[in-house]
C-alpha cells in the first residue's frame, strides 16, 4: 500500500456517515432544549408603533418573550459591520431585534422561547405588532431615484461608491482609449437576484453551564472561531469561557460566513439568562426572507476594440442592489469589478460601482461572490465584439488572453483582500485549446446544420473566468501523533460538505508517510483549534491544506530526530513509509511512528506496555541531559500557520451545447464541458464534485432562479415550490478536463476550487442560447416564457 495519497481520487471518507443518516446536523442536537421562534416583519418598510404580547402569555409552555427593549449592553447595538471599507461611507447594519424601524420583510422583531417549536410559533401568532407603513424602496431603478429612502440618513440610497481606473498603454484613460478605438459598443446588462439556499438552513443551539460560568454554542456556521469572538464580545464573556462548534453543516455557499446572525447572539443570551438549553432551527421561509441574497446588478458597458477584437478600453458602471443592510461590507461589488477582467488584458479599464440600499433582504456573498455577474459582463462583451466583427467567439477571446510567459501578471487593481490584483500563474491558451477539443467547437457548425435540417435549433456557447482563491489572512493546522500511532489533525476553519476530512487526511498521510486510515480530521471546533478565519472564497484547501502540510513537516522533522537517536542513524537517511520510520534502503532498521510518539513524551507513569518504554528507568537515557531536551517539547505534535502574501488565481473555461424548442421555447442543455485549472490537484474526484455542484448552481442562475419581489417588497416565491432550484433532472452530465499550473505562492502549489463551477454558467448558457436563436441576450436567467417574448421582439 502506498502512502502517497496527494493527487489520488481517494473516496470521500465522510460520505458513509453522511449518506446513511449518521451525520449530526444542528437540529439533530439538543433534543431537550427549549425552542426559539421569531415574529418577523410582514412589511418591507415600516415603523413599529406598538408590540402587544398579552394574548401570547396564555400559551401553555411559553417561557419568555423578548423585544429590542429587553436587550442589554452591546446586544442592543447594531450588529457588526464585518468588513469596513473607506468607500463604504454609509454602511448600515440591523439590530438583533428591530428597533423602531423594519427595513425588509422578514426582519426579526420579537423573540419567543417556549417548550417546543410548535408552542413558540403559536405564541408568535398571537403577538400583535402595530406598524405605520412607510414607502418601500424596491428595485435598483426605484432606489437610485432616491425619492424614498431605506435609511433616513443615507441620501440617494447610496451606501458606497467606488471607482477604480487602470490606464492603458501610453497612459490613456479608458474613455480616451474607447474614443480612439476603431470600433465601440455600448449596452446594458441585468443579472437577477438569487441566493445560496443551502438545504440546511441556519441554526443555533446554546448550553450555559452556570456552575462553570461557561457557554457552549453549536452553530451551523462557516466560521466558528469568529462566531465565538462575536458572542464573547456581545455577551461580555471572557473568550476562554465560550466554545463554538460547527457540527455537520448541510451546505453554506456563503450565507453562513456572515456572522453573528441575530439568532447567533440572541439564542446564547437567552440560554444564559434562562439557565436552560435553547435552540433555534431556521425554517425554509425564514431562510428566504431573513438571511441573505446575492447577484442582483445592473451594468452599463462601453467597450472599444480593434479589427481583431482586441479590447483597447473598457468602461463598466455597476449598480449593485445591496438590500437593506451591509454587514459584509462591499466585498461582492469589489469582486465583480476586479474579477470582471478574467483572463484578459483590456487595455485601459475604468469601473465604477454604487452600492444601493433597497427594502429587501441584505446582499452578502453567495458562491461565486460577485464573479458570476462580472464574468457575465465580460463574456457578453466578448460575444458582442465577435458578433460585431463577424469573428469566431473563441478567436476574439484568444486575442485578448494574458499569455503564459506574462505571469505574474499585474492587473493594476486592488483585490478583495486589499492586496494587488496580481495573477500568480495560468495557461489560458492551453485551457481554451483543451476546451475546444473537449466540446468539439470546430466541428459544431456541421452539427448545427444537420440539426437545422431536422427542424431543430442547437447552439454552442463559451465562457472564461479567473477566480482569486485562497484569500488570507491565515489558517492554522495542528497535528498530533499519539502513542497508538494515530494522527489527529485539526484546523479551525469549518466544513459544509466539501470533503475536508478526506483531503486534509490525504495531505497529512502523504506528508507523514502514514496510512490514511490512521488519520482523523477535526474542523470548526474551537475546543481543538482556536485561531481561524473561516471557510469561504475557495480558501480551505489552500489555507488549511498548506498549514496542515507545514505542521506535518514539523512533526516529521521531530519524528526523524527522535527515531535517528533510537536507530543510531542520521536523520537525513530516514524515511517514513506506512507508519514506519526506517533507514532508506534498509527496511529492517526501523521503528514504528507509534513508538516514536511514545519516546517523544518522557513519562514517569506507565499506563500500558507501550508507555513503559518511555518511563524513567526503561531507557538508556543520558544522565547529563534533561529528559526533554532544550528547545524541544514533549509529545509528537506540531502546529503551524499559513499566511499568503496574496491570493492565488485559479481559472476555468466552460462550453455548452443547448437545444431550444422552436415551439415551446424550452431550453435543454445537451452537453456541458469544463476545463478547470486549480493548480496541483489534491483529489481530482473531489474537485470534480465541487465543479459539478457549482455548475448545478450555475444552471439554477442561468435558467431558473430569481427572487421575485412585488412593488410592496413582498418576496413572491419564498419557497422551494416557486424558487426553482434545479433538480438532478435539470443538471446535465458534466464533462471535465483538468489543467494543472501550480501556484508558485504556496508549498503545495494549489489553488482553490470551491466556487469555480458556478462562475461562468450564466455567461455560457446566454452565449449558447444566443447562438441557437440568433437573438441578443442581455438579462439572465432566461425562462421559456422569456425566450418566447424575445422571439416575438426579434
Amino acid at each position, binding site marked *: 500500500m502506498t502512502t502517497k495519497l496527494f493527487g489520488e481520487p481517494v473516496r470521500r471518507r465522510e460520505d458513509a456517515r453522511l449518506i446513511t443518516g449518521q451525520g449530526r446536523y444542528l437540529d439533530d442536537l439538543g433534543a431537550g432544549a427549549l425552542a426559539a421562534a421569531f415574529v418577523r416583519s410582514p412589511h418591507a418598510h415600516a415603523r413599529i408603533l406598538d408590540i402587544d404580547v398579552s394574548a401570547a402569555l396564555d400559551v401553555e409552555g411559553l417561557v419568555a418573550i423578548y423585544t429590542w427593549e429587553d436587550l442589554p449592553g452591546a446586544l442592543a447595538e447594531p450588529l457588526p459591520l464585518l468588513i469596513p471599507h473607506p468607500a463604504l461611507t454609509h454602511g448600515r447594519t440591523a439590530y438583533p431585534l428591530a428597533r423602531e424601524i423594519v427595513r425588509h420583510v422578514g426582519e426579526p422583531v420579537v423573540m419567543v422561547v417556549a417548550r417546543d417549536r410548535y408552542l413558540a410559533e403559536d405564541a408568535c401568532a398571537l403577538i400583535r405588532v402595530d406598524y405605520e407603513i412607510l414607502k418601500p424602496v424596491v428595485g435598483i431603478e426605484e432606489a437610485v431615484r432616491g425619492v424614498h429612502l431605506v435609511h433616513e440618513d443615507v441620501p440617494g440610497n447610496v451606501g458606497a461608491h467606488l471607482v477604480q481606473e487602470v490606464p492603458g498603454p501610453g497612459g490613456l484613460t479608458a474613455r480616451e482609449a474607447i474614443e480612439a478605438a476603431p470600433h465601440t459598443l455600448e449596452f446594458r446588462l441585468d443579472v437577477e437576484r438569487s441566493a445560496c439556499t443551502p438545504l440546511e438552513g441556519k441554526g443555533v443551539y446554546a448550553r450555559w453551564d452556570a456552575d462553570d460560568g461557561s457557554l457552549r454554542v453549536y452553530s451551523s456556521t462557516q466560521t466558528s472561531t469568529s462566531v465565538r469572538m462575536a458572542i464573547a464580545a456581545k455577551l461580555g464573556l471572557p473568550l476562554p469561557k465560550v466554545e463554538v462548534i460547527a457540527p455537520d453543516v448541510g451546505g453554506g455557499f456563503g450565507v453562513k460566513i456572515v456572522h453573528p446572525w441575530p439568532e447567533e447572539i440572541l439564542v446564547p443570551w437567552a440560554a444564559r439568562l434562562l439557565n436552560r438549553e435553547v435552540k433555534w432551527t431556521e425554517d425554509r421561509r425564514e431562510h428566504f426572507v431573513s438571511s441573505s441574497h446575492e447577484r442582483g446588478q445592473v451594468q452599463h458597458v462601453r467597450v472599444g476594440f480593434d479589427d481583431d477584437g482586441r479590447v483597447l478600453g473598457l468602461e463598466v458602471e455597476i449598480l449593485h442592489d445591496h438590500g437593506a443592510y451591509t454587514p459584509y461590507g462591499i466585498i461582492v461589488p469589489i469582486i465583480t469589478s476586479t474579477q470582471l477582467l478574467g483572463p484578459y488584458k483590456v487595455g485601459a479599464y475604468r469601473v465604477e460601482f454604487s452600492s444601493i440600499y433597497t427594502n429587501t433582504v441584505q446582499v452578502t456573498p453567495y458562491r461565486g461572490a460577485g464573479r458570476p455577474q462580472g464574468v457575465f459582463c465580460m463574456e457578453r462583451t466578448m460575444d458582442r465584439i465577435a458578433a460585431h466583427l463577424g469573428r469566431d467567439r473563441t478567436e476574439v477571446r484568444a486575442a485578448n488572453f494574458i499569455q503564459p510567459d506574462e505571469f505574474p501578471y499585474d492587473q493594476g487593481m486592488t483585490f478583495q483582500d486589499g492586496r494587488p490584483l496580481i495573477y500568480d500563474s495560468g495557461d489560458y491558451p492551453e485551457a481554451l485549446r483543451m476546451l475546444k477539443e473537449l466540446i468539439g467547437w470546430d466541428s459544431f457548425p456541421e452539427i448545427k446544420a444537420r440539426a437545422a435540417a431536422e427542424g431543430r435549433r442547437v447552439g454552442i456557447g463559451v465562457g472564461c473566468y479567473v477566480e482569486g482563491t485562497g484569500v488570507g489572512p491565515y489558517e492554522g493546522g495542528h497535528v498530533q501523533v499519539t502513542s497508538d500511532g494515530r494522527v489527529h489533525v485539526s484546523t479551525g476553519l469549518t466544513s459544509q460538505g466539501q470533503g475536508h476530512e478526506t483531503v486534509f487526511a490525504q495531505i497529512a498521510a502523504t506528508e507523514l508517510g502514514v496510512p490514511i486510515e490512521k488519520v482523523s480530521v477535526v474542523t470548526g471546533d474551537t475546543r481543538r483549534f482556536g485561531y481561524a478565519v473561516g471557510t469561504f472564497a475557495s480558501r480551505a484547501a489552500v489555507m488549511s491544506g498548506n498549514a496542515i502540510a507545514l505542521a506535518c513537516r514539523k512533526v516529521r522533522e521531530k519524528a526523524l530526530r527522535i527515531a535517528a537517536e533510537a536507530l543510531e542513524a542520521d536523520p537525513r537517511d530516514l524515511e517514513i513509509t506506512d507508519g514506519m520510520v526506517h533507514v532508506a534502503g534498509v527496511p529492517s532498521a526501523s521503528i514504528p511512528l507509534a513508538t516514536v510518539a511514545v519516546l517523544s513524551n518522557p513519562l514517569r507513569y506507565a499506563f500500558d506496555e507501550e508507555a513503559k518504554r518511555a518511563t524513567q528507568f526503561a531507557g538508556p537515557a543520558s544522565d547529563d541531559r534533561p529528559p526533554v531536551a532544550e528547545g524541544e517539547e514533549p509529545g509528537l505534535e506540531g502546529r503551524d500557520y499559513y499566511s499568503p502574501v496574496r491570493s492565488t488565481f485559479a481559472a476555468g473555461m466552460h462550453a455548452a451545447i443547448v437545444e431550444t424548442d422552436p415551439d415551446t421555447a424550452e431550453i435543454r442543455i445537451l452537453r456541458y464541458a469544463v476545463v478547470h485549472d486549480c493548480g496541483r490537484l489534491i483529489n481530482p474526484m473531489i474537485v470534480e464534485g465541487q465543479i459539478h455542484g457549482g455548475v448545478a448552481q450555475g444552471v439554477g442562475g442561468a435558467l431558473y432562479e430569481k427572487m421575485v419581489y412585488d412593488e410592496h417588497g413582498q418576496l413572491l416565491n419564498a419557497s422551494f415550490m416557486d424558487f426553482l432550484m434545479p433538480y438532478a433532472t*435539470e443538471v446535465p452530465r458534466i464533462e471535465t478536463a483538468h489543467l494543472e499550473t501550480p501556484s508558485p505562492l504556496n508549498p503545495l502549489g494549489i489553488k482553490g476550487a470551491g466556487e469555480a463551477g458556478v462562475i461562468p454558467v450564466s455567461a455560457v448558457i446566454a452565449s449558447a442560447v444566443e447562438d441557437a436563436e440568433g437573438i441578443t441576450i442581455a438579462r439572465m436567467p432566461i425562462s421559456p416564457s422569456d425566450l418566447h*417574448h424575445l422571439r416575438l421582439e426579434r
Partner: protein
Amino acid sequence: MKPPPFGYHGPATLGEALDVLAETGPGGKVLAGGQSLIPLLNMRLAAPAHIIDVNRVPGLDGIEARPSGVRVGALARHAAVERSPEAAAAQPLLRQALRLVAHPVIRNRGTVVGSLVHADPAAEMPAVLALLGGSVRLASRGGEREVPAAEFFTGPMESALRPGELAVSAFFPALPGRSGTAFHEVARRHGDYAVAGVAAAVTLDEDFRIAAARVACVSVGPVPVVVDVTAACGPRPAASADWAAVAGAVRDRIEPEGDIHATADYRRHLTGVLAARALRDAASAARGEES
C-alpha cells in the same frame, strides 16, 4: 413552519369517519396522502380545527378496472394507480397523466382522489377527470351522491365537496373503441406543476376519420378547461388534420393569467402547441399506432 393546534381523529371504519366529519362540520379536514395538506398546515395557510386521518379506514384503497372504466378509491396512491396494468388497459390516460404528477416519492404517498378534492387547476388529475367526463362519489352520514366532473370543480382549490362529506372514490370512464389519449405538458422543472398542459382524447369512426376530439387544459383557468374541438377538426382522417388550426381554436377558448413563471401570452401560445401535440398523439393512439 409548524402547524397550529388541531384535533386529531383516526377513525377505524368508514362509519366512524363519517360520524366525525358530521360532528366537526366545516372545521374538519380529511387527511389522506397529505402531500398538499401537510405543507399548507406547516405554513399555517390552513388551520382546520380537526384533522380526520382516514388512512386506517379499510376498503378505501381499491382500484377497480372494468370495461366501462376505472374506479379509484380514496386511499389508492398515485403510484398504485400508475402501476396498475388493468387500470392502464381500461383507461390509458391515467398512466399517461400520473407519470407527470410530481415526483415518485410524492406519488408513493399522494392519492388520486385527494388530488381531485384539492382541485388545483394546475394539477393533472382534475383535467383527466374533466376530459373523460368522470365523477366523484361523495359519502356522508346522510348517504352517497355521485357528482360529475363538470359540477365537481367549482373554482381554484374549490370543489362541490360539502362539510361532512368524504370523497370515497372517483370514476374514470373508458373511451369507446378506436379512441386514443395523450397528455403533454411543460413544467419549469421535471415534476413541477405545469406552466401549461393538455390532455387529449380522440375517437375515430369506422373510416378512421375524426369522430370526436376533446382537450382539457391545465393552468389556464380557475378549473380544468375542457374544449371540444371535434368541429374544428372536421370529419377528416387524422393524418390530414390541421392540428395547428385546431390549436388556434383551443387558444381562443382559454383565459390564462400571468404569474412569476410565465406570462399569460406565453401560456396561451404554449397551450396551443401542447394541444396540437397531444391531439396528434391521441389520434395516432386511436389508430393503434405507438405515439
